[in-house]
């Protein structure tokens, strides 16, 4: 209800925003380029640079805040991009200022160049981890989870008898589960797919059951007066009410799926996958590739999350006013 402030409506503010962003981003870039890469040349006076870098970050943050005003497309997307830019440049500058060895923490610049030089291997790994393991496992786990949730809600006995055990299983960490599954299924990618499916299963069951049970009392009463069959109550009241919960669970599961796949790869692989790459490169202190793999995992995770999000807005054109 507060009137919408837009940068466009206040040219002064727009100018200020642009200036702050320019100083923040440009300044950090300049600092990062001026400072030597760790290992080349003498380490600079870190304390002095720290103050400067923090100041530039603060100026940049003011700019980001300004850029986030209004409802334009730019105002929605640019702040996140600028934040990333500031964070990356700030990290680069800090790592250079403190001359941190690349074998401990690589500078973002090195990570970027590793992304490029190792692109074929990394893309192959991403395919294995994301498509074969995470995506397939996610789909399998979701289908199973929804089916189980339906059963649980349909038969109250199962709800009381089975659901408590779901909580039990969901607190078993993948690190304990993965060796058992790898042992049972094998070292190739399907074992990781199974691990992903199992880890996705429980959030989906719990979310779907919660959603299916969140139906309004009055609506249930109404269906009761119609002597509706459970299937009808299900379709007309429970499912529409459950969708937001299910999507909430799917969003959690989408990030979980990728992490599980990577972690499961720590317990045995045939030489493919981002988890394998991370593990093998950590041993070689090739942390630039490690971080490149982490970046790819993150990007895949975000893309996955965004996909589920888009599906949600598609399927749930929520009628509610905010």
């Amino acid at each position, binding site marked *: 209800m507060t009137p919408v402030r837009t940068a466009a409506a206040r040219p002064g503010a727009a100018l200020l925003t642009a200036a702050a962003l320019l100083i923040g981003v440009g300044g950090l870039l300049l600092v990062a380029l001026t400072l030597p890469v760790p290992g080349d040349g003498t380490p600079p006076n870190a304390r002095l640079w720290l103050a400067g870098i923090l100041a530039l970050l603060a100026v940049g943050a003011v700019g980001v805040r300004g850029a986030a005003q209004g409802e334009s497309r730019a105002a929605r997307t640019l702040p996140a991009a600028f934040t990333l830019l500031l964070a990356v440049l700030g990290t680069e500058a800090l790592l250079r200022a403190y001359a941190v060895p690349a074998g401990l923490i690589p500078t973002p610049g090195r990570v970027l160049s590793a992304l490029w030089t190792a692109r074929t291997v990394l893309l192959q790994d991403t395919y294995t981890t994301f498509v074969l393991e995470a995506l397939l496992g996610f789909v399998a786990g979701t289908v199973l989870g929804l089916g189980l949730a339906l059963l649980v809600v349909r038969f109250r006995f199962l709800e009381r008898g089975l659901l408590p055990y779901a909580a039990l299983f969901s607190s078993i960490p993948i690190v304990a589960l993965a060796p058992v599954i790898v042992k049972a299924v094998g070292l190739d990618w399907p074992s990781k797919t199974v691990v992903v499916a199992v880890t996705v299963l429980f959030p989906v069951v719990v979310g779907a059951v919660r959603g299916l049970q969140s139906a309004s009392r009055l609506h249930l*009463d109404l269906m009761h007066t119609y002597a509706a069959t459970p299937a009808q109550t299900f379709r007309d009241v429970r499912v529409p009410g459950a969708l937001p919960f299910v999507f909430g669970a799917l969003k959690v599961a989408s990030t979980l799926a990728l992490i599980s796949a990577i972690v499961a790869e720590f317990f045995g692989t045939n030489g493919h996958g981002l988890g394998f790459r991370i593990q093998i490169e950590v041993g070689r202190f090739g942390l630039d590739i490690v971080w490149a793999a982490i970046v790819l995992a993150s990007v895949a995770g975000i893309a996955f999350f965004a996909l589920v999000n888009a599906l949600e807005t598609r399927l749930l054109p929520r009628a509610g006013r905010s």
Partner: protein
Amino acid sequence: MTYTSPAPPTSPPPNEPPIVSIRDLQKVFPVPGGETVALKDANLSIQRGEFISLIGPSGCGKTTLLRLMADLEQQTGGELLIAGRSADAARRERQYGYVFQAPALMEWRSVLKNVLLPLEVMNVPGDRVGRAREMLKLVGLDKFERNYPWQLSGGMQQRVSIARALAFDPPLLFMDEPFGALDEITREHLNLELLRLWRETGKTVIFVTHSIPEAVFLSTRVVVMTARPGRIEGVVDIDLPHPRSDDTREDPRFFTLATEIRELLKKGHA
């Protein structure tokens, strides 16, 4: 609209069991640190084709009584039969429609789809959309069929919920203050429509209202309740002639009956 079997009001076929029969009915709600007696020692017998109004102070158990009859709540004592069967059996046979005190529309369905709901659930044959539109027209909302509930005013929502309850043409209607949120003109219009429907279809209606004139105008009998613990204070026979019209309200008997109910209510309030 075509309805079959215009049953003569207030004259049930002989030997038919009462459609509602209540003996010593009681409902106690447990509340933290005690209990609320919402209904106590209620006795009532309703014949098929009657139009019964329940009237009484706020919190006296009218909603509770309706919910018990609709098998939405379990009694804690006494006996309750609907058409000679248990409330549960009657519900399973889809004997009644229920208009809740709150509209209870589904926010993910448009107005039309809300009215279509019971028709879909009960798999009513024929032109369902036509039927739903007819009902919306009856309550004056045919222009809003594509709106979503939150785009309607309170009274409009309540009218959608009335249309929904009427849509599948149940023989028994429970209506919990259906016209409470409506203006007098709309209300009087709907009163007349409801009476016509009742007359033409032989439905039994059990109707909660706070308006004494409305109760007198509509009913064959008015049940007056008292508060805490909810009890039936008295039952007033409304011996005004049918069909009723605006003239009915001018009848001196109308005034006498209203006063009688008023006195009973006052007694219950004290």
